[in-house]
């Protein structure tokens, strides 16, 4: 390419004050390949751009260097101008002689020399530039949401309300997640069920939402805009099309004493059941592990009593395939179970709290079920051991969290607030009771949060004791809590009726296997990693996959809902175009030279590099080479610098271009 035009901007006086622009233009005219050079007061102004367009036409320019401000400022402006003049926009480059020259040097001679050098480098670069065409990828405007808790529900409703199809996959028999289990929510104390269940019904009634409950992700293929998802629908043993949700089967089931997981084992359920009365869908599922029919074949009562004949013992697991363009992962959290000490895990147990051994030592979620109006006790707070109303309740915060030695170094974020809430709920129900809280710090950042915590102390008279609990033991029918008040500096002992532990929040079991299927990264705790902690907090590094809720890190409901809506907005942005257009700064593999070592694949943070098989006409495999999926590549160029055979090239930053620039030194 040898017809380059150089346009030097005065930027008012910002450049011309220290750089002799005329001299630079003069020097540019002497450079190899430069056909035309000029200087102008304001290149970015309308007359400046017209001048540029005219020069392109008049001098049949094949490349442009605009020597002006930083490309971060006006690259887009001048590339658009170049395009309007009929040039490929990627044949226009900017030489930064303002931020990197005129503004930072005061010697006119030196600055002019440097500006000339910069222009020279860019001229050489442009000579090696190639025309680049923006990459387009078709977009399937259908979203997959994994997880039917409040995060998944919010994202699903937002996307569906925007008019796009949504596929919602939930592992449990009902959507609702943890929020459906909660009693009242901080900091407003409104009833969780009351705000949650209408949203659940909205989901099931929404014409744009396809709901798969009791289902899991089997495999994920494809890339942004074009994912293919295989979903395993577990055998429910009840035909959802026929079932009316009358509930007769559940009444008649002879198995009645199965601990109810939804009620944290405080109550019981039959073998054919819905997890809770407001479940969505309201279709029972048979727990084949506990069902007599499945254990020894000697029952079948539910099938007999079912009017519509919906019970189907023969039903099998089913695989279905859904095509989607974007994925929102919203798999949520679980509470750290301190009674168990998982084998091979760095996480250690907490024997000193007696959880699992002392019946009146419970976790926070169990307390939620006790306090919930729709819970197993109808909202009456009683001790699991003897059903008596506890008069002294001790809450312990940070159980498992913020304990490096125990394997979890992070703060679980919600415990301070929900414990404050628990003390209030307790005080509202047991007026003559006294709540005590052992805490290390009170972390209450959030709107009206600190005020809420202070209210628990100042108005609801919870006694907060700063200091961690050392040990909990049974003494008669009391549970003795040994702690310390570090403000007073003495030991504290409380004979409690009930002890509630605010245990740590962890990602759901299987979060890592799902991440591997999706090709997204996760941290050492299995929380999913966002692309950028500040600027891209809801996107995965893998294009087209977004995060919502506690699967990314401990989070409360307001944050979860915000993030879910943000993820939905990202999906909607993606769906706003039929074709996905991306800047063509992507890597390409020269298959002729590629030796298939796949070093590039190892360093690619985006999973953009795939293996490609090269076959002859008979279909025999000749060799394997790397292939960069342009839809996924982000254009960092790490693969190119890594490639030992120099067979990957990053468009826009090729070795040729860089070397040409260095030649001018």
């Amino acid at each position, binding site marked *: 390419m040898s017809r380059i035009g150089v346009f030097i901007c005065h930027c008012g006086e910002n450049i011309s004050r220290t750089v002799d622009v005329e001299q630079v233009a003069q020097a540019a005219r002497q450079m190899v390949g430069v056909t035309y050079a000029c200087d102008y007061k304001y290149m970015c102004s309308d007359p400046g751009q017209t001048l540029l367009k005219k020069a392109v036409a008049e001098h049949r320019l094949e490349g442009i260097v605009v020597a002006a401000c930083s490309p971060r400022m006006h690259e887009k402006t001048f590339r658009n101008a170049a395009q309007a003049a009929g040039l490929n926009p990627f044949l226009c480059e900017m030489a*930064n002689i303002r931020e990197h*020259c005129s503004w930072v040097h005061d010697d006119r001679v030196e600055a002019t*020399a440097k500006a000339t050098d910069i222009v020279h480098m860019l001229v050489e670069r442009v000579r090696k530039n190639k025309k680049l065409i923006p990459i387009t990828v078709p977009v399937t405007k259908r979203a997959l949401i994994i997880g039917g808790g409040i995060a998944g529900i919010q994202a699903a409703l937002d996307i569906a309300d925007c008019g796009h199809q949504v596929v919602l996959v939930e592992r449990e028999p009902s959507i609702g997640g943890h929020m459906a289990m909660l009693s009242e929510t901080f900091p407003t104390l409104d009833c969780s069920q009351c705000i949650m269940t209408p949203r659940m019904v909205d989901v099931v009634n929404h014409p744009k939402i396809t709901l798969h409950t009791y289902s899991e992700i089997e495999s994920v293929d494809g890339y942004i805009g074009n994912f293919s998802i295989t979903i395993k629908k577990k055998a429910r043993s009840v035909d959802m099309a026929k079932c009316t949700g009358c509930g007769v089967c559940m009444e008649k089931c002879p198995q009645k004493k199965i601990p109810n997981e939804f009620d944290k084992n405080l109550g019981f359920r039959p073998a054919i059941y819905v997890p809770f009365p407001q479940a969505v869908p309201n279709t029972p599922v048979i727990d084949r592990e506990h069902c007599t029919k499945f254990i020894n074949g000697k029952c079948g009562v539910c099938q007999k009593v079912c009017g519509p004949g919906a019970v189907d013992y023969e039903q099998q697991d089913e695989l279905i395939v859904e095509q989607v363009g974007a994925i929102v992962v919203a798999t949520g959290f679980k509470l750290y179970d301190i009674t168990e000490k998982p084998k091979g895990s760095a996480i250690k147990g907490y024997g000193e709290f007696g959880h699992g051994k002392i019946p009146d030592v419970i976790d926070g979620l169990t307390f939620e079920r006790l306090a919930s109006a729709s819970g197993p006790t109808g909202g009456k707070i009683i001790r699991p051991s003897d059903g008596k109303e506890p008069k002294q309740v001790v809450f312990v915060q940070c159980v498992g969290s913020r304990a490096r030695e125990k394997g979890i170094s992070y703060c679980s974020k919600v415990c301070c607030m929900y414990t404050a809430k628990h003390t209030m709920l307790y005080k509202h129900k047991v007026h003559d009771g006294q709540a005590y809280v052992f805490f290390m710090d009170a972390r209450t950042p959030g709107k009206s949060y600190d005020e809420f915590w202070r209210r628990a102390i100042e108005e609801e008279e919870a006694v907060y004791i700063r200091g961690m609990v050392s040990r909990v033991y049974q003494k008669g029918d009391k549970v003795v809590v040994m702690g310390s008040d570090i403000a007073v500096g003495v030991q504290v002992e409380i004979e409690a009726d009930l002890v509630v532990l605010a245990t740590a929040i962890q990602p759901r079991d299987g979060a890592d296997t799902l991440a591997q299927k999706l090709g997204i990264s996760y941290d050492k705790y299995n929380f999913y990693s966002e692309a950028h902690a500040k600027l891209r907090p809801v996107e995965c590094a893998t294009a087209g996959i977004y995060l919502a809720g506690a699967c990314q890190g401990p989070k409360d409901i307001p944050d979860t809902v915000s993030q879910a809506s943000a993820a939905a907005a990202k999906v909607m942005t993606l769906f706003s175009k039929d074709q996905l257009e991306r800047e063509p700064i992507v890597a390409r593999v020269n298959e002729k030279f590629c030796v298939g070592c796949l070093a590039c694949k190892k360093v690619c943070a985006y999973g953009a590099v795939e293996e490609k098989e090269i076959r002859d006409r008979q279909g025999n495999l000749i060799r394997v080479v790397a292939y960069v999926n342009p839809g996924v590549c982000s254009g960092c*160029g*790490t693969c190119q*610098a890594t490639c030992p055979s120099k067979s990957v090239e990053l468009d826009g930053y090729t070795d040729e271009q860089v070397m040409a620039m260095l030649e001018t*030194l």
Partner: protein
Amino acid sequence: MKHDFEPKIVAFVCTWCTYAGADLAGTSRMLYPSNVRVVKFPCTGRIDPVFILKAFQKGADGILVSGCHPGDCHYMAGNFHARRRFAVFRKLLEFIGVDLNRLEFSWVSAAEGGKWVEIVTELTEKIRSMGPLTQFTDLNDEEQWSGALSNPELKAVYDQV
């Protein structure tokens, strides 16, 4: 000229952090020596060690490689790959006899205009005190102009051809 020797410094920078940091130094009107020439890359991960050799060969007296702070990479891990790559590369440079003080690595974020100025100024002064790098340019001159093969073995091979 204020000094006898004005070194030539080449800076390889990533576009997201250090290039933006240098822009900030400009918008804040900070002053620094004009010896530096900036070559922009999307990420320090893109920087091939060959570029550094090339720059030295073409007369650079000092080289600066600068990108995002660890953990802040726009492309997540490009700067880590770069860091690892250059750790190895320094050994090579040492082997061929280039003073490692001529090659500097740093992290400059988009908010650190002052740090950019500091680093460039210090490097320029350091290289100035070290004097010009002649190994490569001398070699270049020999190759192009002398035509003489000093090594007898090479000469034998040459004659054969």
